[in-house]
């Protein structure tokens, strides 16, 4: 393995990720998240395209209460913009910046992209139903010992393990 592809030791990465999460709690009183930012951008888009509609559709109204100053001014949107910058910096330093479709040699790029799209739709939907994704519900929820966080974590990973056999061609 050449040096440019070398990743950090996972335990070191885990400790540092834990410290980032701890910083979020210490400064802002809340944990990390990702899917919440997507919800905010989606609400903002719908509000811009169809303002009268968003004012009446129930889920937008219910989730608007948690966003003071409009959905785009929320904490998670700024945090996710940071994730793009941080990911880019790390990739740039390690020489990993490259446009590509990553997939198993056994499948085509086209198949990979179709599955990526379907997976994204399901993950996006599930993150709304489950009130958070791997970051906001599972990781953050576990750190604060939330029962729901542990349950969601167990079902995300448990389901993926249970179905791994059927999708093995896509990965190995």
């Amino acid at each position: 393995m050449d040096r440019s592809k070398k990743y950090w030791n996972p335990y070191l990465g885990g400790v540092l990720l834990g410290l980032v999460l701890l910083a979020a709690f210490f400064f802002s009183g809340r944990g990390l998240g990702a899917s919440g930012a997507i919800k905010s951008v989606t609400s903002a888009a719908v509000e811009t395209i169809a303002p009268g509609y968003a004012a009446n559709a129930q889920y937008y109204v219910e989730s608007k209460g948690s966003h003071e100053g409009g959905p785009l001014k929320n904490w998670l949107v700024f945090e996710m913009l940071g994730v793009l910058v941080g990911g880019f910096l790390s990739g740039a330093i390690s020489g990993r910046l490259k446009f590509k479709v990553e997939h198993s040699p056994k499948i085509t790029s086209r198949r990979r992209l179709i599955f990526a799209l379907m997976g994204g739709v399901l993950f996006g939907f599930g993150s709304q139903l489950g009130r958070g994704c791997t970051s906001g519900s599972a990781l953050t929820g576990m750190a604060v010992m939330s029962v729901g966080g542990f349950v969601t974590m167990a079902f995300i990973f448990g389901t993926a393990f249970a179905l791994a056999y059927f999708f093995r061609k896509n990965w190995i």
Partner: protein
Amino acid sequence: MGPLVVNEIISPMTNLMLAFLIGIGFGFVLESSGFSSSRKLAGMFYGYDTTVLKVFFTAAITAMLGMLFFSLFGWLDLSMIYINPTFMSSAIVGGIVMGVGFIMGGFCPGTAFCGAAIGKIDALVFIGGLFLGVLLFTEAYPLWEKLYKANNMGSPTMNEVLGVSRGLFALGLILIALAMFWVAEWAEKKFPREEY
């Protein structure tokens, strides 16, 4: 004393700037740990690469212990930390749907942004899917509203449910994590896979 924003020690605008900086740290660590690669993430479910498990549990334990110590030193008021509420039905069904999405798509939302940041087209397509999925949920909300709001248990924590102290629960989780790390190291030796 923390949390600084809740206690109005720093302003809401500074809070947003901190969110951006914390996000940079989040993205940097994820990418440097290899979470921008879907095949590395999916490796978790086939045993050839268990980075996800190691990073995920080490991070959860570090943050959990950090908060316990910060609280002990009087630096952080744990009662002001947001605890994710538990709606048991949607936590289970949402988790299952996300699990299917994970094994099909190879990313979760946070890691997909990391992948997209370094040029992974599959990550970008996954993000497109995320928006569609969120839109589907919000547009047809009345269809799943009942499930979404069922079995509201408030915001219970694991230590309360088990009737033990926070510290004892943290100790138990650390022991469980160590056992899992041991199995993970074993699995990587048993199902080796060098190039992907």
